């Protein structure tokens, strides 16, 4: 019994001592802080690089700047606890006025709820939320998704333009249970029927399961030659998981087939690994990166068969939301100003065409004022931009719903 008391007393004393001294804030010049939470480099590099770009622009809060950057765990599907407490720990800083989570992995909504209970003054932005739209709309001040509805049509349209006759959609149960991804699959299926293409759904292992990334990539490597043989070389491939992208591209270069764009498109997505590119010299400059990737794709005989977005989606969302939050906090604009949001994104993507619109709930037809869907023109290597953002999309695609 004595021991318990001793230990407890020691623990309490320690906590109190450090509670007192840990708040010895140094001379901090920034008027406010912005918290940015992204995946790690090994999980989603682009998102993290966007946070680093923000740090480069506005400084790290530890050294008098604005940005506090944290990462959620690699195996976020196992460790929701950690994700929540990482996000929540940001709210401990009284100067922190905005939190950006990109990608908003499961647990973000709960963390936002808790932040809101404690600190209603903090702006909460979610990039590419994994949780269902109504859940995240309820708690976030602004959510950004890549336009899973329009792209359900435009990716198929682009595949047809590039010359594909069939479309293979590679995914697995966890992803198909996300409303955004599941819905897009249904739209793609419909678009294929309408445009006279064959739609095929293939299952590959989930990289977050215990086969790990290695097992998942191995599966794609092994299966691709067989799939291409089965469905023909005039087939476009699409996968919903980032980890699948690299082996997919590698095999497409070797065996033929088309690739319109990745789930979260970026010139950095899959290509550098599949092509063995060194981009050190081009770091940070997406126009140069795109050029180098293009040269290499064309050299490998992939002209006209491979596409991407000219700028990284993940990078832009992190950086763009950060910029938007800064503008709001600095009083340059206010929450809900769409023009300023677009402008914040454009800051990181000079010369690119974006299309954006509010999320529309297929069930109720309501528009969400705080949930934007964005997408960009597809850039086909060795060929140039496809005007995907200029396509007129049949309204019926917006009415496809997952619940019937």
């Amino acid at each position, binding site marked *: 019994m004595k*021991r*318990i008391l001793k*230990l*407890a007393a*020691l*623990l309490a004393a*320690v*906590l*109190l001592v*450090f*509670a*007192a*001294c*840990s*708040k010895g804030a140094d001379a901090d010049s920034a008027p406010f802080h912005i918290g940015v939470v*992204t995946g*790690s*480099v*090994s999980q989603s590099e682009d998102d*993290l690089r966007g*946070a680093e770009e923000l740090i480069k622009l506005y400084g790290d809060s*530890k050294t008098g700047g604005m940005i506090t*950057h*944290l*990462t*959620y*765990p*690699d195996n976020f*599907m*196992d*460790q*929701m*606890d*950690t994700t*929540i*407490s*990482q996000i*929540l*720990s940001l709210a*401990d800083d009284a100067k922190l006025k905005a939190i950006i989570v990109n990608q908003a992995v*499961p*647990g973000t*909504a*709960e963390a936002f*709820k808790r932040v809101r209970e404690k600190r209603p003054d903090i702006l909460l932005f979610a990039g590419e939320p*994994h*949780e*269902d739209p109504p*859940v995240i709309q309820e708690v976030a001040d602004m959510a950004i998704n890549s336009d899973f509805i329009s792209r359900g049509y435009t990716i198929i349209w682009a595949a047809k333009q590039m010359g594909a006759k069939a479309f293979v959609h590679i995914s697995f*149960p*966890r992803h*198909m*249970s*996300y*409303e955004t991804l*599941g*819905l897009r699959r249904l739209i793609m299926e419909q678009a294929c029927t309408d445009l006279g293409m064959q739609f095929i759904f293939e299952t590959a292992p989930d990289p977050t399961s*215990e086969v790990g990334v290695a097992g998942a990539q191995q599966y794609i490597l092994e299966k691709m030659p067989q799939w291409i043989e089965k469905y023909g070389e005039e087939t476009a491939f699409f996968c919903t998981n980032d980890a699948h992208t690299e082996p997919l591209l590698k095999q497409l270069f070797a065996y033929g087939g088309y690739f319109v764009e990745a789930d979260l498109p970026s010139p950095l997505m899959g290509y550098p690994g599949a092509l063995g590119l060194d981009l050190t010299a081009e770091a940070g400059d997406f126009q140069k990166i795109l050029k180098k990737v293009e040269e290499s794709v064309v050299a490998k005989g992939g002209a006209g068969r491979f596409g991407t977005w000219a700028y990284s989606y993940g990078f832009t969302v992190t950086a763009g939301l950060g910029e938007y939050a800064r503008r709001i906090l600095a009083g340059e604009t206010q929450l809900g100003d769409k023009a300023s949001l677009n402008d914040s994104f454009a800051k990181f993507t000079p010369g690119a065409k974006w299309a954006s619109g509010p999320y529309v709930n297929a069930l109720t037809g309501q528009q969400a004022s705080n949930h934007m869907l964005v997408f960009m023109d597809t850039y086909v290597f060795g060929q140039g931009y496809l005007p995907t953002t200029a396509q007129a999309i049949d309204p019926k695609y917006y009415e496809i719903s*997952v*619940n019937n």
Partner: protein
Amino acid sequence: MRNVKSFVADNIVTLIFLTITIIAIPFSGLSGSYIISNLIDRFARSSFLVFALILPIMAGMGINFAMVLGATAGQIGLIFAVDHNIMGTEGLILATLVGIPLSVGLGWFSGQVLNRARGREMVTGFILGYFMDGIYQFFGLYIMGWLIPIRTAQVMQIDGGGVRNTLALESVRGGLDKIVSLKVGPFSIPVVTFAVIAVLCLFIIWFRRTKLGQDMRAIGQEQGISHAAGINVDRTRILAIVISTVLACIGQIIYLQNLGNMFTYTSQRQAGYYAAAAILVGGATVSKASIKNVFIGVFLVHALYITTPLAGKALFKSAMVGQYMSDFINYGIIASALVLHAWKNKRAADLARAGLRMSAEAQAAAGGVA
């Protein structure tokens, strides 16, 4: 002096992690009130699960990593409650009512398996957890929605087959924590949750004194002698696991109602892993555990979890290193606690053997062969 030495030797694991925590706190830059309010929250959330480990340790079966099975049962209960739109405290009660029979069955099963794997209970239990993952996925993805109808779109997968991967537990969120929430300064204390934990403590204290509790401790000491003394060893061991599994089931429900969100197919994996780390850090060994160990362990482990990612980040100037750092510490806690304990045991055994040999030699020398 000697007292201090033996105190250190007895609590080496706890002291090591106390030191790490003390070092990590200033580096993390977190405020005391944040750490304390987070600790209260996490204590309410996860200590019940840790209690589930006490009985099997008492019965000499080591850390019951198979408690994951109980957590799974709890999750099935919650799926049921959410699917039928039963809200709040009533929803949790219903989930518990559904979970308990399931966890009794699963506990009986894992007890049987562990009885056949004597001497390797821990690793078997660990693998049993993974095995259950497969069965559970089969249940959630194929049986549910086919044999057992799913009523709510919120629970059903988009393509209509099985239970979703992430389940929002909004309807039962805080169903226990928020019945009575006491505000003390900046902290809010979930009174009912703490009351439930207190009742569980009393139960364990009472249980140790019952015939069954005594039997378990006897088995934990020495199975052979217990058997000779007429204790049904196998049955008692199974009962220890069954109770542990049921407690894990309730513990998981408490844990998830606090978290408000559930990864249908992975949340249960975390249960055994956090709980094992906590009880070991609290000074329990694989053969001895008490309520005290649970309390100290939960506080220390969570203080570590709260501070290490940020401390790692501050030390290495990289958010990612901070994250890996805390993962490393998470696994390292269990590894080093087990190692230190096994090492202590071995030293004790060596000492005993040396003592035995010496006394034997002394006897031989004194008595001679005569």
